[in-house]
């Protein structure tokens, strides 16, 4: 009963997602949207939801199912983005193949990172620290290397609309690709979750010793999880590179990206197939709406100019309040994410999805 209701809800949301591009520009949708939002931004938000839902789903294989807290997944994202882009720029290789190459590179790196970390028994916060340090090293190297374009990054040469080059002027094709990516992520993790491998990962998460006693080679399985998770994340990186057609290290390997990926998974419900997707569906719109609504900040007063201006203190303060009311210096979206993360940790540590489920069963009982 509960299960079929769940499937029905997912189905309806899925259908709305598929249909959205057809009515994004319709009068009804435009009328209910907050000011400043166009149909195209709506699609952009959709793409971000799917992409982040997919990335969080990829992270979930290692972080959720297997319980190894990686705080450096942006590294794999960047490997995916750069590998396919470099192959495309230098050898004209289609990103469709490039993305597989990126996934392969990421898998090897993930496997290696897993090997050194797990061989020396790094767990919990220490594994997290190694993954952050690894991502930071990669970021610094990418800023330095010539072949990655250094701080200027890579610009993907524009062609006309082309499926083989994975390039389009319109948003719709990207929208459906992102949607497909997310569906692929859901199906892949669902398949993993119900297989022996998935059971093994959860067993390792809950007690590595008990898992070993039952014949589970914990190290090997953890490494497999790291490789799969890394490869899946890299696919998302290629998509991102093609979508934005411009990548720089400070966008694709930043710590904030790693944290956002985890955020969606944890807030939605890590270790569950749908948890990360639910997290992205809840948080990305909140974040993006906040950004859109308060985007006026950029055109408003500059904080530095205000502070250094010679006007009287009272007037200065009044102007400062105006500045805050228009969104201050920004950051509200991430501030909200942080606050929601804290709230979830304190109140529903297993995430929103399990909380909703227990609410549902509680409702049935009473």
């Amino acid at each position: 009963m509960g299960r079929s209701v769940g499937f029905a809800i997912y189905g309806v949301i899925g259908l709305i997602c598929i249909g959205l591009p057809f009515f994004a520009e319709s009068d009804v949708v435009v009328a209910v949207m907050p000011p400043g939002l166009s149909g195209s931004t709506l699609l952009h938000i959709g793409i971000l939801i799917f992409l982040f839902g997919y990335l969080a789903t990829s992270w979930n294989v290692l972080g959720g199912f297997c319980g190894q807290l990686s705080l450096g997944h942006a590294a794999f994202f960047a490997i995916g983005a750069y590998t396919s882009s470099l192959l495309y720029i230098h050898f004209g290789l289609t990103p469709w193949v490039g993305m597989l190459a990126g996934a392969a590179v990421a898998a090897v790196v993930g496997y290696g990172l897993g090997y050194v970390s797990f061989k020396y028994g790094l767990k919990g916060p220490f594994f997290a620290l190694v993954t952050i340090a690894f991502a930071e090293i990669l970021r610094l190297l990418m800023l330095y290397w010539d072949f990655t374009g250094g701080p200027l990054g890579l610009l993907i040469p524009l062609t006309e609309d082309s499926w083989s080059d994975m390039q389009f002027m319109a948003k719709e094709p990207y929208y459906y690709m992102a949607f497909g990516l997310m569906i692929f992520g859901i199906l892949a993790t669902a398949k993993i979750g119900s297989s022996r491998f998935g059971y093994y990962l959860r067993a390792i998460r809950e007690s590595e010793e008990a898992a070993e006693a039952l014949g589970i080679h914990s190290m090997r399985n953890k490494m497999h999880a790291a490789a799969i998770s890394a490869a899946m994340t890299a696919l998302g990186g290629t998509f991102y590179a093609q979508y934005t057609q411009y990548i720089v290290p400070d966008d694709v390997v930043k710590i904030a990206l790693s944290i956002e990926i985890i955020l969606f998974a944890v807030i939605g419900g890590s270790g569950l197939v749908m948890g990360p997707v639910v997290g992205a569906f809840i948080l990305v719109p909140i974040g993006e709406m906040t950004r859109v609504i308060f985007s006026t900040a950029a055109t408003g007063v500059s904080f530095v100019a205000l502070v250094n201006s010679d006007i009287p203190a009272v007037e200065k303060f009044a102007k400062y309040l105006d500045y805050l009311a228009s969104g201050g210096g920004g950051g509200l979206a991430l501030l909200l994410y942080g606050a929601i993360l804290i709230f979830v940790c304190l109140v529903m540590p297993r995430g929103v999805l399990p909380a909703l489920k227990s609410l549902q069963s509680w409702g049935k009982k009473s």
Partner: protein
Amino acid sequence: MSDFILEATNISKRFGGLVAVKEASISVKRGDIVGLIGPNGAGKTTFFNMLSGFMPADTGEIFFKGKKINGMRPSNICKLGMTRTFQIVKPFPELTVLENVMIGAFNTTSSTTDAKKIAMEVLNLVGYASYADMSAGSLTVAGRKRVEVAKALATKPELMLLDEVLAGLTPTEMWSMIDVLGKVRDQGVTVLIVEHVMAVIMNLCDQVFVLNYGEKIAEGTPAEVSENPKVLEAYLGDDYGKPASGAN
């Protein structure tokens, strides 16, 4: 193949200055239920950890089915047919009872359907099938211990090492667990059991080894061991049997 499924000779373990196990030897005959007893802190769990591969032995050799298993990782030892339970039970708390047992069952199959079937058989055997869908984290101590045994049993072991599966149970729970252990033996599984509750050892075991301060102080049938003065002393204090002096 020798009669003995497990043979450990002169194994020792030292932690810093403390010798937890000192040159202890044990041999377990195929098909027996063998008890390993001793007062708290006698080194029984350390002994178990060495046998099951969770701790390397400092000295000595361990043979399982004639194959030397020193240095093998626990998962490989399990694949060979020896599994263990933990004194402080380690259920997978977020998983259901059935899923817990399925994880053991995956030792011999990669199919989820088969694993489910094996797990249900085992749960029926231990009399816990009706709890299959409960989450393991919500069970009582008795329930957790049963799941612990079921998980191990589902790996289809030839030898099971059970670490205090009865401690903390009420008498009723205890007797039903003893019943389970009898059924396990009837399945042809050899059992090596660490236990404080002596009643079990007396009723169930074919052979008993007694450890005290890391050394083996006695071995034999339960009847022989319970008459052994060294054992009485280890358990009840060195002047047991003399009239109590009282506090006054």
